[in-house]
């Protein structure tokens, strides 16, 4: 029997075990929507295509399975761009299908035509414009394979409407044949031995852990490595949930808003082991002063990451879980006592702290209490800004895949739709979006999606009436000229209630715990608006392109 391209698409999704599709309809995907409808395929209608792609991304980050989204041609497709770039920067397996004008009208500026494969070339791992319906099963098979293997990333498939409507015999290929795509999984054993020997010799080693650890599912191996060798661990924003925040060996986040202990340790270490981390400028600060005395080991599945920003002494290309598994039998407990005493003393002396203020709620305190109330076990999504950094600093993560945040692109508007995807992928987990007042309004329409599907997402809004992170830079580097950063905001509680979501107002310090507890106990979605100190800053802070051990706003305890 012959199937239409649209039916083939649905069959392929089933073959790949896709349980849900996030999307938004339009003229050039009518046949696809019809096929989904006829098949009763589970589908979430977001309220904006950006919401759909971030939801697919959140689903993928929370579950480890690929997230899939669908948009129509032209404006639908271009609305995916920010979400694809977000997924690309953080190596998230997202598969995006877009409608397109029929092949016969391509290239003629047809109504709702946009060259989406051209536009997304630099922000996808790979993309396809399907020109023959007979190619469709192969293309979809390849797309899932490429998105989920090696260093994961988004893949886009553009489907002209005559392809969705065209008919062919359907057979899903069993294997892919991609002569130019062969990721390396096993680390070179000689290099792994060299790493083991470097670990043995080091007196002041540090494990520098990034998001690749989570992608590889190597949290357990990392924990074993750290404990067996007694080496302190610093994490990137993307690596926060890969190692328990309250562990004795955890020094916290490094970089621009890192802890003093993490930044001092990296500056003084004699061996830095980068595990799925890419030496981003927000981490290194001024590169010349980054880990200046250290021998550097880097483990990454993407060969292009090795030595990209910082020269590496022992490069290991491979999957982190595999490499650490091979490494573990070779390592011996090191004599790091003196070093741990030193890093431990920094950790204590320069513990993160903030000023409590009679007049205002400190956002940090809200997050400390949130962390306590949820025992660090919730899935936390964030938007982008100060609130995001405070989550990284104050939430005590205990579980892998529990911190969903746009690290590489820094996309405001990511958190709310990502929470939708996370809640759908992990229906029994508590999913919280910690938001800023600016960011929340970038995809606020997704409150409608949350209400419509009765998703019990909890939104904790830290409202400072500012684009706080930008205001902080203006305070320090532009003599407090707050250009364009004060926000005259709507009544968020009324807004939530208009969407059918229960709102809570928190504006007294004494009530933080009670209000949060009450809100978290609600079985449906809630929005808690916390009126926080408008001029609070994220500290410590490394000034742009400064050395990471020279931080502003350091407090001693």
């Amino acid at each position: 029997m012959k199937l239409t391209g649209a039916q083939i698409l649905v069959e392929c999704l089933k073959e790949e075990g896709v349980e849900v599709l996030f999307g938004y309809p339009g003229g050039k995907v009518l046949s696809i929507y019809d096929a989904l409808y006829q098949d009763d395929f589970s589908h979430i209608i977001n309220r904006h295509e950006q919401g759909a792609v971030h939801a697919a991304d959140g689903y993928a980050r929370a579950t480890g399975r690929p997230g899939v989204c669908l948009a129509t041609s032209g404006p639908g497709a271009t609305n995916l761009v920010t979400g694809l770039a977000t997924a690309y920067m953080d190596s998230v397996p997202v598969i995006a299908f877009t409608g397109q004008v029929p092949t016969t009208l391509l290239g003629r500026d047809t109504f709702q035509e946009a060259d989406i494969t051209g536009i997304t070339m630099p922000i996808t791992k790979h993309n396809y414009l399907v020109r023959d319906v007979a190619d469709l099963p192969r293309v979809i098979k390849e797309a899932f394979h490429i998105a989920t293997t090696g260093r994961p990333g988004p893949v886009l498939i553009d489907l002209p409407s005559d392809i969705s409507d065209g008919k062919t015999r359907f057979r899903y290929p069993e294997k892919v044949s991609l002569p130019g795509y062969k990721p390396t999984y096993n680390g070179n054993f000689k290099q792994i031995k060299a790493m083991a020997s470097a670990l043995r010799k080091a007196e002041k080693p540090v494990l520098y852990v990034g998001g690749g650890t989570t992608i590889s599912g190597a949290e357990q191996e990392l924990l074993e490595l750290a404990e067996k060798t007694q080496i302190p661990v610093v994490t990137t924003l993307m690596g926060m949930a890969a190692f328990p925040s309250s562990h004795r060996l955890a020094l916290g986040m490094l970089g621009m808003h890192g802890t003093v202990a993490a930044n001092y340790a990296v500056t003084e270490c004699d061996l830095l082991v980068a595990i799925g981390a890419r030496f981003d400028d927000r981490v290194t600060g001024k590169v010349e002063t980054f880990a200046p005395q250290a021998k550097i080991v880097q483990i990454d599945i993407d060969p292009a990451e090795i030595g990209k920003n910082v020269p590496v002494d022992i490069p290991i290309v491979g999957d982190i879980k595999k490499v650490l598994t091979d490494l573990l039998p070779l390592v011996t407990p090191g004599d790091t006592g003196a070093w741990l005493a030193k890093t431990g003393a920094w950790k204590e002396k320069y513990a993160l702290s903030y000023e409590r203020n009679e007049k205002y709620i400190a956002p940090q305190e809200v997050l400390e209490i949130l962390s306590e109330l949820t025992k660090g076990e919730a899935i936390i999504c964030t938007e982008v800004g100060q609130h995001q950094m405070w989550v990284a600093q104050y939430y005590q993560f205990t579980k892998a895949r529990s911190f969903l945040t746009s690290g590489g692109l820094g996309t405001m508007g990511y958190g709310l739709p990502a929470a939708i995807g996370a809640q759908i992928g992990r229906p029994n987990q508590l999913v919280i979006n910690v938001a800023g007042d600016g960011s929340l309004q970038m995809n606020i329409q997704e409150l409608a999606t949350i209400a419509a599907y009765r998703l019990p997402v909890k939104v904790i809004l830290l409202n400072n009436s500012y684009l706080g992170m930008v205001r902080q830079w203006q305070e320090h580097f532009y003599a407090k000229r707050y250009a364009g950063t004060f926000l005259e905001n709507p009544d968020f509680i009324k807004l939530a209630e208009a969407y059918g979501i229960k709102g809570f107002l928190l504006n007294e310090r004494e009530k933080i715990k009670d209000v949060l507890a009450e809100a978290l106990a609600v079985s449906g979605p809630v929005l808690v608006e916390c009126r926080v100190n408008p001029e609070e800053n994220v500290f410590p802070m490394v000034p742009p392109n400064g050395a990471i051990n020279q931080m502003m706003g350091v407090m001693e305890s």
Partner: protein
Amino acid sequence: MKHTLALLVVNQPGVMARIAGLYSRRGYNINSIAVGETEDPKVSRITLVVEAEAAHELEQITKQLYKLVDVIKISDITLDDSVERELALIKVKSSSANRSEILQIVDIFRAKIVDVSRSAVIIEVTGTQDKVEAIIALLKPFGLVEIARTGKVALVRSAVRA
């Protein structure tokens, strides 16, 4: 320093755009790019001449190219024993008065005159990039009207495939 890279890529629409786009996006310079089918119609060969100062830079370019799903193989053949050729068509102003002078130059370079009109000739030359540059320099005083160059193509001499 200039490097010659020989790429084998999947013969697919868009592959040139991916490669050229990657170069401009990552801030690298391409001196020339030449593409054509190989003995296997599913595979194309691209010869790239690129500028890279440090070894580190070339390594990054190569790794980034390898990340493209359509790129099968990359060889830096700069230092290999290889045959390198470029073809150029050079249109030069010419009148009966100076035609023999031009012919002399054409002979020395074993080039060919492939078109003659009243006021111009078109010269076809094949050779290394140096040779092409040299003949262009010699023809310049006559007045260059237009030039079309293919960019370098190259193959390594030995029986193995690069």
